[in-house]
């Protein structure tokens, strides 16, 4: 069947719950607490039905900047092409990348239907990040969705650097896709920037 198996199962539903806010994290002690609080704040702030798309996008961007290391994610996603990009391209890319993320995820919070999440465990990755395993419980009785947050930094200054939904890393998916776009545009970052500009309406 077309797009069969559970390839896409969780890939895009992470957004119903995710994200974190940086403010008032002084009490946070561990990465698990960081994720727990942040997730709740994101739900409180973004799932309000009365706000419009513009306001939701604005709130989402604030939360994204506060809790995610967007430049770091952007660099990873560009992969090997980061090195060959000019400074001007890098600057524009990071700006477009943030717009791209906001456009892709912010509005998914509008469809929120009572999902909750709980932290299952925290393990250290081989490269000194914390992997916070969570489970998103769906009110409809469907099986819970596994989401793993890769958290970097010290207590009080944690930042999320990747989100893995049902084994699918958002960063890796984005990186593979961007690489394909670059390849089909003669291996230049300019081609990707063009595609991003079109997508984000810049």
């Amino acid at each position, binding site marked *: 069947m077309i797009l*069969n198996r559970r390839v*896409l199962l969780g890939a895009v539903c992470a957004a119903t719950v995710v994200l974190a806010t940086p403010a008032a994290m002084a009490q946070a002690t561990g990465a698990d607490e960081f994720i727990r609080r942040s997730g709740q704040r994101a739900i409180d702030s973004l799932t309000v039905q009365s706000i419009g798309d513009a306001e939701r996008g604005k709130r989402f961007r604030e939360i994204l900047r506060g809790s995610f290391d967007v430049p770091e994610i952007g660099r990873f996603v560009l992969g090997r092409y980061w090195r060959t990009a000019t400074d001007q391209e890098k600057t524009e890319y990071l700006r477009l990348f943030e717009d791209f993320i906001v456009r892709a995820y912010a509005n998914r919070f509008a469809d929120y239907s009572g999902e909750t999440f709980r932290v299952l465990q925290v393990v250290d990755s081989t490269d000194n990040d914390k992997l916070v395993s969570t489970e998103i419980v769906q009110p409809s009785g469907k099986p819970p969705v596994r989401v793993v947050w890769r958290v970097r930094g010290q207590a009080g200054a944690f930042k999320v650097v990747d989100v893995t939904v049902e084994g699918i890393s958002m960063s890796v998916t984005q990186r593979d896709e961007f690489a*394909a776009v670059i390849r089909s545009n003669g291996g230049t970052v300019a081609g990707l920037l063009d595609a991003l500009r079109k997508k984000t309406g810049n």
Partner: protein
Amino acid sequence: MAYGCRVRISVLGHQSVHTPRGFSVLPDIQKLRARVVSRLAAAALGSLLLVAGCATSPPTNDPEALAAYREANDPYESFNRTVFDLNMNLDRFVLKPVAYVYRNVVPDPIQGWISNALANLRSLIVLANDLLQGEWDRANNTFVRMLMNTSFGLGGVLDIATEFGVPRHDEDFGQTLAVWGMNEGPYLVLPLLGPSNPRDLLGFVVDTAFDPSTYIVNVAGVDAFGPARFAASTVSGRAARYDQINELQRTSLDFYAAVRSLYRQRRNDEIRQGRLAAATPGLMPEPFALGLEPSPATASDR
């Protein structure tokens, strides 16, 4: 970048065997064989098609491009993209509208029953693959589920077992082959079946040949069960992913490449049984170091 077009022909199975259909309830040996052979022939057709595609030659003089080429693991990309477009057109004009009607017209509980019954039909395949992978606890779960849901669950329509704390999991022979150490091979997009690779295609053929319900033959000689089941699981699965696929299409710059990446990651996760890939660096300064080699999980990382 040089593009070489090579055509190779390989035939897995043999030509189809003409067997007159009888009217007995139980399939005789000849019929069974004809069924298996026709399935294999379908697979052979698939493999024939796939190697007939144009393989893009790796750009040997450019290490960066070569690395990108290896990472994509998609030497038949131009052929795959053609089939992908074909599949997407089929989706757009046939499957998606049908799935739209299905999810909006059929009441939710009935959709749940259909999806449960389809899952229950796969129980024997899941059980066999649990056993072949030495996953005794999971095999036990599958066995208990099959008994409970088939009996108290009214032929699998109700998922009683999940309510009793024995949740569903899936398995297939493609995953078993991976656990046994077989590499996935190049990425393939198959007509109708979608994203795959030689390992998963072989797994599909073996699972189908193993599945007793493959051999159900109607009294009147009309063989509707297999196609009906295929259609039902296709529509049910498409309906369940309706919003996700819409979102992915809306947000992706290259939908084909996004699906290719998702397929690989999802399969690797299934092979690991969803366990954390602690050894897999997710985000490192050098993306080359990513644990995304074509080699599947082996016993050592599980």
